[in-house]
């Protein structure tokens, strides 16, 4: 869709309605239909605070090229009804170019919607749905929205079959009929003229449909994880639920723990036994796991913890994203406890970064925290197929053990061969207590220093290769960011005039900790000014950069907490002015 504010080729459609109305189902089907048609896209669910019957919104953006963030405004808002619609005011920005489609039977349009100046169009979804036995308004809405988006009816009907199929033939037929009715309303004029139909997409349907949480699960499985300990927490539960049956199929297992204190310790025990292990959680759970992470650092046990960030602090806003667990992940452990923190920067990247985390944990016998967020975690996205890559290294094991074997021997790379339980002659007691090279508890200064040095050295000396950051461009103005903010920044840069866009070098950090001064110096070579952009209240990455890196004199920051997302237009405007300073 062409849009006067830019030249990006996407259409943003929001569906809202009260609970039980099937808004999220319709949204999911619209996304799936887009996939069948060969489009990219993503859908973000938004919900009110009810467990049942609460209002919900499906926020979609579809396009010709990969979509990894939401647009500044929505082209279309399709409201099945207006229940508590004001809750979604910030989630569904509209302007005069937007089209609002509503059911006149569902009440009058709220003032704040009218106030946006959007164009209005009536669609009698309920009445039309009622003309079909077993018909529902959300299916009419689906048909209408798909037609506006230029998706052929056949793709939507295929999605209907897929989604509704298990409810039986009659249900599928009823839904399909409603979809057709929706299409027919567009064809009959009015709304069709309001939005220019998209150009026909290529019919390459070789795409994947996944969420960040499922993608992280895939990355874990590919990385070799065969044990997971699980304690559910919003918005991370799907990682564990996805893994449970698939770990079983792979010969592994998932144990549901009684709390996060149990889940982190179970994962440590399983890893001590020799099996690559993980758990997944969100902020409050990460806080509970901090002591366990310290144990894994001290005892040198490989471990992966996926933290799908939500708004904090404390219980915060469980269903909304924020990038505010940086400090907890990097600094949270008591003592000097070097460990690794990585961040995925897109739904697709959740696969790679999680897989990389397993590789790092196993290679260095250290805990690795993977930071994802609710936005990526619970988004459904149409992405290119994600091929498997091979990280070659694995746990250094001690196998033929002689009499002089020492579990925590000081080695050049800081990584000591680890005997797995059952290996004769390798018996040792892993410990949170500081220890000698022979794994005996020790309070001696020399031993403490030697082990501290070793544990720091092993992660500092490791060759992280090019994975530590994604760097686009070689301009003299560098934007430093991480996580899901990356996509909004990238799109914002794409909206700048070419001469300004070329000035910008985007550095999206995947390896947050340990710091990489040499690699960063290289990445910022010839950079005159830096802007740090992140989604939290206190500029957590910014403070870290200040502590650990040499930065040019001219550093600016742009940080805002969740739940608001960075919008590409907002960022483009800021970057535009910044470039011209």
């Amino acid at each position, binding site marked *: 869709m062409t849009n006067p504010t830019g030249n990006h080729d996407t259409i943003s459609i929001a569906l809202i309605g009260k609970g039980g109305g099937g808004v999220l189902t319709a949204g999911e089907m619209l996304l*799936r239909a887009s996939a*069948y048609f060969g489009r990219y896209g993503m859908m973000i669910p938004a919900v009110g605070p009810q467990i049942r019957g609460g209002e919900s919104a499906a926020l979609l953006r579809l396009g010709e090229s990969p979509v990894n963030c939401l647009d500044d405004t929505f082209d279309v808002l399709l409201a099945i009804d207006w229940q508590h619609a004001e809750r979604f005011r910030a989630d569904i920005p509209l302007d005069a170019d937007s089209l609002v489609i509503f059911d006149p039977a569902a009440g009058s349009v709220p003032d704040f919607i009218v106030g946006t100046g959007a164009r209005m169009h009536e669609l009698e979804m309920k009445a039309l749905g009622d003309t079909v036995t077993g018909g529902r308004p959300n299916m009419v809405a689906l048909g209408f929205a798909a037609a506006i988006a230029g998706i052929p009816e056949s793709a939507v009907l295929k999605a209907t079959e897929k989604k509704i199929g298990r409810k039986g033939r009659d249900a599928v037929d009823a839904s399909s009929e409603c979809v057709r009715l929706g299409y027919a309303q567009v064809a009959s004029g009015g709304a069709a003229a309001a939005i220019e139909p998209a150009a026909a997409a290529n019919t390459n349907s070789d*795409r*994947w*449909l*996944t969420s960040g949480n*499922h993608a992280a699960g*895939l990355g874990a*499985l590919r990385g070799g994880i*065969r*044990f997971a*300990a699980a304690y559910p927490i919003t918005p991370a539960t799907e990682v564990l639920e996805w893994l449970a049956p*698939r770990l*079983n*199929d*792979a*010969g*592994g*297992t998932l*144990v549901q*723990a*009684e*709390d996060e*204190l*149990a*889940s982190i*310790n*179970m*994962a*440590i*025990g*399983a*890893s*001590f*036994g*020799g*099996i690559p*292990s993980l758990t997944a959680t969100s902020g409050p759970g990460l806080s509970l796991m901090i*002591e*366990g992470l310290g*144990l894994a650092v001290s*005892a040198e046990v490989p471990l992966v913890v996926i933290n799908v960030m939500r708004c904090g602090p404390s219980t915060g806003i469980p269903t909304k994203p924020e990038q505010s667990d940086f400090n907890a992940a990097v600094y949270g452990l008591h003592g000097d406890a070097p460990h690794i923190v990585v961040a995925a920067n897109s739904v697709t990247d959740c696969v790679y970064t999680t897989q990389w985390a397993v590789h790092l944990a196993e290679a260095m016998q250290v805990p690795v925290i993977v930071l994802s967020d609710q936005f990526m975690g619970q988004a459904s996205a*149409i992405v290119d*197929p*994600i091929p498997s890559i091979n990280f070659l290294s694995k746990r250094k094991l001690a196998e033929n053990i002689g009499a002089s074997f020492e579990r925590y021997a000081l080695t050049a790379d800081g990584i000591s061969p680890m005997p797995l*339980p*059952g*290996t*004769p*002659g*390798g*018996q*040792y*007691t*892993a*410990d*949170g*207590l500081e220890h000698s090279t022979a794994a*005996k*508890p020790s309070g001696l200064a020399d031993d403490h220093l030697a082990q501290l040095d070793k544990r720091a050295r092993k992660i500092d000396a490791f060759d992280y290769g090019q994975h530590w950051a994604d760097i686009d461009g070689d301009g003299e103005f560098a934007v430093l960011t991480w996580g899901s903010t990356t996509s909004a920044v990238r799109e914002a840069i794409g909206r700048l005039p070419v001469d300004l866009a070329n000035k910008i070098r985007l550095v999206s950090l995947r390896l947050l900790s340990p710091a990489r001064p040499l690699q960063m110096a290289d990445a910022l070579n010839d950079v005159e000014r830096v802007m740090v952009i992140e989604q939290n209240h206190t500029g957590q990455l910014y403070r870290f950069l200040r502590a650990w890196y040499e930065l040019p004199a001219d550093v600016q920051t742009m940080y805002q907490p969740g739940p608001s997302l960075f919008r590409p237009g907002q960022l483009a405007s800021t970057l535009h002015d910044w470039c011209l300073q």
Partner: protein
Amino acid sequence: MSAQTPCKLKASDYKSDTKPVWCPGCGDFHVLLSLSKAAAEIGLQPEKIAVISGIGCSSRIPAYMNCYGFHGIHGRALPLATGVKVARPDLTVICAGGDGDGFSIGGNHLLHACRRNIDITYVVMDNEVYGMTKGQPSPTTAPDWDSKIAPGGIGISPFYPLVIALASGANFVARAFSGDPNGTTQILVDAIRHPGFSFVQILSPCVTFRPDQRDWKKQVHAAPVKPTSDASQAARRVMTDDGFNIGVLYKGSRDPYQQHVGHDIRFDRDIDEEFLP
């Protein structure tokens, strides 16, 4: 076997060369002896045993055995041991600790480990005090026991480990006394051999902070009845327990937790296909 040709493992084969930090006279020395004798009696290879503990005097025990061990964090021995056993069902996993580690900070994990009925043996060396931190009441301390932190006594009811273990579904529930290493050895052999979660409370006097526990050797007595496999019968018995009945209370027949990491790690389908829309 004759006196000249030792052919089986002895208790000393399980002792490491690390000197225990325990006070001389500590009951835990005899628990260590009993565990070693039990392992020898069963004939377990030392490298096939994993001894998992938390924090406290008793939790120091893994380092004193010539087995694989993990001295973990306070109260988390049971989940640690659970992870080890699920990952490595081939190992014999002994979880060990004291009454503070096990019943206070670790109390929640006890409930769920019993429910889970994972095939490990949990040995709690109960001395009714927090010894390591120099003498505070523990969950099994009598309400009127005077201490600096709770002058006049903590004033709340003690915790009844056998009751809790039984009610939570442990498959084997027993009490032993460290002053009877041979008897304790027998109970431990039984516990280790019994499938599922075996819970053994071992009364183990603290010579430093509970010198009054010297009297325990006069107060303990063999349980008057044989172990039962009927949980409700065990429940009735344990309600009249004087805290000094020594023996196996209950030996159930619940299936142990079945899930484990297997050795045949294989995918029999292409997981990538699941990502097609």
